[in-house]
C-alpha cells in the first residue's frame, strides 16, 4: 500500500465490530464532528477528493489508531490550519469550552434536508481529446504506479488483470482533483477482478471484486 488508509486486503485485523441496530453516533461529539465537516466554511477550491486526502495525510499511526469520526475531526483541523484560518495552539487555548449544542430549529432542519438532498453530480460532458473508451467486456490491466499523492486505485488492485463490466461515463478524476490539479474528467468504469487474480491461490473460491477505476488507471491487457 501507499499509505495506511489503503486498507483493502491488509492482513492481521480481527472480527468486524458488528452490532445489531447500531446507532448513527456513539456520543454527541461524533454528531458535532459530522455536522462541522458538513457545514463549516471550506477553503476556495476545496472538493471531496481533497477532503479525503486530508484524512489520508494524517500521521499513519494516528490514522490507523483513530475512529472514523476522529479522522474526520483531524481532517477538518488540517484543512482549517492549512487554509491559515486557525492554529493548533488556538484549539488548545479553547479546551474546556462548554458544549455549543442547542435544540435545532425545525425550519433550519428542513433547509438542511433540502441542501443535502440536492444532487451535485460528478459526471461531466465527454469532451474532445479524451482517449477512446474501453468497452464493456474489454480485458484491462491496472497500472503498477505507486504515486505520492491522492489516488483511488488501491494497492491490492495494482498490476492486476480484470474485465470492464460497466461504463459510468466521464467523471471528475480524483487522482488529479485531489492533488489540486483541477477536475481532469475522464472515462470511469467498473472493472471486475477474480479474487484469485488479486489474492492468489489462497483467495476464496467463487469471489470477485469490482472497483470503479478511471481510464488512466488502466492499460489494455492482451
Amino acid at each position, binding site marked *: 500500500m501507499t499509505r495506511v488508509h489503503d*486498507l483493502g*486486503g491488509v492482513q492481521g485485523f480481527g*472480527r*468486524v*465490530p458488528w*452490532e445489531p441496530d*447500531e446507532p*448513527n453516533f456513539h456520543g*454527541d*461529539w461524533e*454528531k*458535532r464532528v*459530522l*455536522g*462541522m465537516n458538513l*457545514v463549516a466554511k471550506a477553503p476556495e477550491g476545496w472538493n471531496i477528493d481533497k477532503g479525503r486526502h486530508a*484524512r489520508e495525510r494524517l500521521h499513519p499511526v494516528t490514522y*490507523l*489508531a483513530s*475512529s*472514523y469520526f*476522529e479522522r474526520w*475531526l483531524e481532517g477538518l483541523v488540517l484543512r*482549517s490550519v492549512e487554509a491559515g*484560518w*486557525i492554529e493548533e495552539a488556538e*484549539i488548545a487555548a*479553547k479546551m*474546556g*469550552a462548554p458544549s*455549543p*449544542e442547542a*435544540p*435545532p430549529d425545525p425550519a*433550519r*432542519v428542513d*433547509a*438542511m*434536508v433540502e441542501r*443535502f438532498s*440536492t*444532487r451535485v453530480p*460528478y*459526471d461531466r460532458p465527454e469532451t474532445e481529446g479524451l482517449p477512446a473508451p474501453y468497452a464493456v467486456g474489454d480485458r484491462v490491466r491496472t497500472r503498477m504506479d505507486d504515486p505520492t499523492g491522492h489516488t*483511488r486505485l*488501491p494497492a*491490492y*488492485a495494482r498490476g492486476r488483470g480484470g474485465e470492464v463490466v460497466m461504463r*459510468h461515463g466521464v*467523471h471528475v478524476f480524483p487522482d488529479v482533483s485531489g492533488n489540486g490539479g483541477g477536475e481532469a474528467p475522464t472515462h*470511469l468504469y*467498473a472493472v*471486475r477482478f477474480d479474487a484469485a487474480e*488479486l489474492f492468489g491461490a489462497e483467495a*476464496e473460491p467463487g469471489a*470477485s*471484486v469490482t*472497483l*470503479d477505476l*478511471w481510464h488512466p488507471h488502466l492499460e489494455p491487457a492482451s
Partner: protein
Amino acid sequence: MHDHGPGHSHLSETEARVRALETLLAEKGLLDPAAVDAVVEAYETRIGPRNGAQVVAKAWADPDYLARLREDATSAILELGFTGRQGEHMVAVENAPGRHNLVVCTLCSCYPWPVLGLPPAWYKSNEYRARAVREPRKVLADFGVTLTEGTEIRVWDSTAEIRYLVIPERPAGTEGWSEAALADLVTRDSMIGAGLARAPEGAA
C-alpha cells in the same frame, strides 16, 4: 495487552477537542453551530435506511420499477424523492439464487447516504475495510450470514462517486404483500450485502 480498539481510550480528551474546535470556528465566523445541530438532526431523523427499504420493496413489487432501476438507478431512486450528497450516481446490484453482492469502501468509507443514511461504525472499521475484499465469505460468517456452497460473491469496492445499493432476495412467503409491508423486511445490512432481508414472521 495494549488497548487497540480505536477511539475509546481518549474519549474525554476528544470531546474537549471537538468543543474547542467548534467554539473556535464559530468565533472566527467559519461555522454556525445552529447549522451543525440542524444537519445532524436531518441525518438522525430524516435520511436513513427506511429510504432504501422503500426502493427495494418497490423493486420487488413492481416489475416496471425494477426495469427502471436496472436501467438508471439514480433516476429510479429519485422517483421516490431520494437523492443528494453521496448518492449522486446510484447503481443497484441484485442478489439472486447463487449470487450475493457485498459493498465496501476500502479507501475511506463511501456509502449511499440518501438511501441508507450514515454508515454504521462496523462499515467504517479497519477490520471491514481490510477484510471484505480478501475474505468476504469469512466476513459474512462473522455477521451470521452463511451462503449456500458455490454461491458467487461479488464484492463492490466503492472507489469512485458511484454508490452501490444491494437489492436483497425477496423472502419467500411474501407474495401479494404491500410495498409498505415488504419494506419492513428490508434491513440496512441487507442493502449493504452484510445481511439478508428478514423472513416474514412465522416463516421457517
